């Protein structure tokens, strides 16, 4: 039986790992290559990198990080942030990433999903969705709206409709970020996550809000998530990945424990 995946997420700015709250107030917390290696050794199932470098002329730093990670880490890892074109995707994948995620670029230009899936295979293309809870309306029947530009711009697009459209276009997986929950460590969004996960056939990674193992247990069971993204609770040493997995296994969640 397939294991639920535990995926540490590293936000990288100018080659350094950083962490913010609700996408703001970031501070640097370490070297992404060393952190990734440590998570790999602790039993992470996958690693996610988001390049939040503001200026595009410093993207080469990120590609160098990707290359160094690929040389020593032999589990899948994905890279997102600032991926706008097929060429950007190619650069990231050739540098050694298994997957590439698109977020704002996919909202502004949905064919990038289908073009990427055709060129590199659906399994490479992750749709990152940043979502905020809003009042349900005719235009946003689910009551969850897609926001872009790192949470600054509302799009008027319904989150569920967008998830289904992205699947049709060929996305291989969805990484579902709740902006309301991000960095607060108060738990994942437990209404939004099952709503999306039960209405698509591709895997859904829940992101935003992990503060303890109860939160992870909830999102992987009630929340119907296929994987849980974590950041603060491992970056600040609250738990190791092994502790998280042993605890989840003890509660009956199938996770990978032997490696």
């Amino acid at each position, binding site marked *: *039986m*397939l*294991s*639920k*995946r535990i995926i540490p997420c590293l936000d990288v700015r100018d080659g350094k790992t950083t962490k913010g709250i609700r996408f703001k107030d970031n501070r640097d917390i370490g070297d992404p290559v060393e952190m990734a290696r440590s998570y*790999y050794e602790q039993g992470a*199932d996958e690693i996610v990198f988001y390049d939040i470098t503001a200026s595009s002329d410093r993207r080469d730093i990120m590609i160098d990080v990707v290359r160094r990670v*690929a*040389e*020593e880490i*032999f*589990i*899948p890892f994905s890279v997102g942030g600032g991926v706008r074109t097929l060429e950007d995707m190619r650069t990231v*994948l*050739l540098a*050694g990433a*298994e997957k590439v995620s698109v977020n704002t670029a996919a909202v502004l230009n949905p064919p990038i999903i289908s073009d990427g899936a055709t060129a*590199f*295979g*659906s*399994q490479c293309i992750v749709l990152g969705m940043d979502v905020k809870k809003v009042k349900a309306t005719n235009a946003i029947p689910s009551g969850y709206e897609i926001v872009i530009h790192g949470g600054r711009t509302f799009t008027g697009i319904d989150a569920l409709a967008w998830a289904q459209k992205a699947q049709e276009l060929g996305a*291989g*997986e969805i990484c579902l970020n709740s902006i309301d929950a991000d960095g607060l460590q108060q738990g994942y969004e437990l209404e939004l996550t099952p709503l999306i996960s*039960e209405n698509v*056939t*591709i*895997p859904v990674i829940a992101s935003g809000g992990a503060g303890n193992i109860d939160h992870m247990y909830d999102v992987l069971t009630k929340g119907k998530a*296929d*994987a849980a993204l974590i950041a603060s609770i491992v970056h600040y040493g609250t738990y190791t990945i092994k502790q998280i997995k042993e605890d989840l296994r003890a509660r009956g969640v199938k996770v*990978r424990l*032997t*490696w």
Partner: protein
Amino acid sequence: MIAIIDYKAGNLASVARALNHLGFECQITSDANTIKGAERVIFPGVGSAGQSMQDLQKMGLDRAIHDLYESGKPFLGICLGAQIILEESEENQTTCLQLLAGTVKRFSIPLHSGDGSALKVPHMGWNEVALKRIHPVFKGVTPGCEFYFVHSYYPAPTNTDTIIGTTDYGITFTSVLGSRNLIAVQFHPEKSGLPGLTVLKNFCSWDGKDEAFA
């Protein structure tokens, strides 16, 4: 030298990086003579069966792969490379390389786990491989340990002697298969952490002999 067959299918560099990490030299190539001259060969692949078979034929590599199988040299198929060694695939209704008897099938939706919950396709993530018999390439791999999979189609060999390992995902499918000097894995050893690296390392020192086919 270890040759990695390049037929434009997916991220071959990750296999090369894993071999380099283990201290083995390898060459990514689409040249039939280089493949013929190699000591052992890896046949990876991500992509669709139809397109890949067309590319292999266009490059004359289908013949090279048949010769390789006949030569007795150690030969490792990965992912799509564990599928198109069979006779035909449901993906694009493709006639495949026909090294082993059997077909390639798609996971049919709806697919349910033992507790009744709906399973997703592709089968993406870490899952166990239950070995049906001993094989030198799996020496030292802890029983019950997991490997990284990502696929929507699976190998269904008909000759049970060629089934080396199986995995459960709604159904039980063959995740490791082989015969004589050929071993093929549906998972990605290059992305499966230490157990995956162990499989690759074992392959790199394997003499190509399989007791079951002695």
